[in-house]
């Protein structure tokens, strides 16, 4: 669907808030706490599709997202920062949600770092409206505290940390009630640290929820042979396997583009995949019989896929 950029508000040199409105005088589909949309961003030679969390919750008049300009951006966030202007039309997807609030839980512990705060900005009004117990800890760089402070409500259970070191994870996770669910969003190293700490003291998987953030980062180029389509392709270093398939005019299954939903899984016939997803089990990764095309790449010069 088409969306018009209604407003762009700089929050810092590298962070901007975008307000999007439906092209016609209609309403958007309702978003939700934790939902994201895909933005199609025009580039000189191709279209980028980036996922951004909606921070506007269920509001239908406008969507809001926050975009950090990624260092060495492939084109998506750089275009939004340097070329996007109010009035421009963008193609966006309908919202999807891979990071919903576990509504049957009574307590919610939210841990974020950096731009990973965005899904929680849509959580907070819902948690407050339904009187659900929650605690939010947001970590950022010392010099970015003044960027994030205005985004957060001034509540005793919301804490801003000027470095990750001021957050004693083990103490925090140990002190939680049994009916608490944990949500974590931020850079991969942050999420891995939180989840490892939680598992070490016995948190069950079912109570740990992670948002994959940042998405595909590129890597060494490789070749892919599609056995059923009879097509051979080069996957460039700044391109995902999924993007390579799409740019060849193919319609492979896909949804989240972040390695989380599992929709884009394809069987691997030859070659060794380099997994970057959050979906496959450890056993499935080791077996190497399938690949999530949206984020994963190849450890061998060539992959042969059953597609």
């Amino acid at each position, binding site marked *: 669907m088409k969306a018009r950029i209604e407003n762009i508000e700089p929050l810092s040199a590298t962070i901007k808030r975008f307000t999007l409105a439906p092209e016609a005088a209609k309403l958007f589909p309702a978003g939700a706490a934790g939902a994201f949309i895909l933005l199609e961003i025009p580039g000189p030679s191709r279209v980028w599709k980036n996922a951004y969390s909606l921070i506007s919750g*269920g509001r239908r008049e406008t969507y809001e997202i926050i975009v950090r300009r990624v260092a060495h951006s492939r084109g998506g966030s750089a275009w939004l920062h340097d070329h996007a202007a109010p009035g421009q039309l963008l193609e966006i997807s309908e919202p*999807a949600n891979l990071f919903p609030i576990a509504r*049957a839980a009574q307590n919610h512990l939210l841990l974020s770092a950096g731009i990973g705060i965005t899904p929680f900005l849509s959580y907070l009004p819902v948690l407050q409206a339904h009187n659900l117990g929650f605690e939010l800890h947001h970590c950022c760089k010392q010099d970015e505290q003044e960027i994030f402070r205005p985004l957060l409500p001034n509540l005793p259970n919301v804490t801003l940390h000027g470095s990750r070191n001021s957050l004693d994870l083990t103490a925090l996770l140990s002190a939680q009630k049994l009916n608490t669910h944990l949500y974590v969003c931020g850079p991969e190293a942050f999420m891995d640290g939180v989840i490892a700490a939680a598992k070490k003291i016995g948190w069950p998987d079912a109570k740990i929820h992670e948002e994959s953030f940042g998405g595909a980062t590129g890597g060494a180029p490789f070749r892919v042979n599609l056995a059923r389509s009879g097509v051979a392709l080069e996957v460039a270093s700044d391109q995902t396997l999924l993007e390579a398939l799409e740019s060849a005019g193919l319609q492979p299954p896909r*949804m989240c583009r972040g390695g989380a*939903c*599992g*929709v884009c899984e394809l069987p691997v016939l030859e070659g060794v995949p380099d997994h970057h997803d959050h979906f496959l089990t450890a056993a499935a990764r080791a077996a190497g019989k399938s690949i999530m095309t949206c984020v994963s790449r190849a450890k061998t010069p060539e992959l042969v896929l059953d597609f």
Partner: protein
Amino acid sequence: MNISLKPAETFRGDFSARNSDAAILRFPFPFPEDVYMYGVNIEPHVRGGPTAAYDAVFDIDEHYLGECEDRALTLIDDPARCQVLPHMIEAEWDTLELLMESLATDYPDLFNLTKNRTAWRWQNRPLGIDHSFIFGAAQSLPCPPFEYITRQVQGDFTLQDQRDNNLYMDGGMVTSQADWSLNFDLGMSFHEWHGPVPVAHELGVFDRALAYLLRLQYGKPVRRLNWTLTVNPRLDTSPENYPLWGPDKATVTPEDIGEKMCLRVELQTLTRLPRSNAILFGIRGYLIRLEELVRVKKYAKRMHRVLRDLHPDIVEYKGMPRYRQMIIDYLAPFDDGEILSSGTAPDQTRL
């Protein structure tokens, strides 16, 4: 869509419900081939299909008034037919929004929805409802939002919460079911509520179906058909009321089987709800007497062949051993052995 609603008919007691010619021609006949077997028959729920029953997101037909009245009667006797667990309140509003918007868009002559941000006005002309309320404020409605809107829509609905990589039946409005109980299933997980189904568990059908549904996307609803046989056009064939309808099975004779025996088809839809991330499962039931069905030549012939060659386990599961042969004998004279087109379109425009 232009439809004319019949005055309220009965789906109990004297069973006055009948299908008009138009209703027979739009019936969602479930057998695309002469042989029926279980399979994954899920497809995108997009507008348009073999008959007009597929034209709307939620189908309203000539039986609207009678079915709403029958639901109200069932709820008076047994309020537990509508239950929603407290954590599903957002899914209740999601459902109300989806149903009101769909009905107002598909049937502007019957329903109207006016919105000024959260101040909504809902007009249901057939039922004489004109209600202004605040979206999100339950106290501005005469009953909880899910019950409020599902009292005004044909078909049963259940709400599935998604958590722990599973689906839980955490709410529903179920007054026209084919022998299952919301009160019994409420709170169950996907495999638990499908427990009674034979064979399919061993085949892994439910593991695959669950994996598929966990990834159901917003804005991309899917549908499938299910079918069984019901004696008399009775909507409420519930376990709770088995003493009322169970004995009907023993009353069927070769003389009245065409009038009494009904093919019951469920047009099931699955829709991801936006705010709650829950799944709304719609079970839109259609009943057609055999004497009505056989007026479509293709349906009479195909129904005969399907029942004649049906796998014995399915005969047993659908509860039809007692009268299966009687139905085959009733249908056989209509079947001249002609080769039929595949698909479920009636292949005739008049009866």
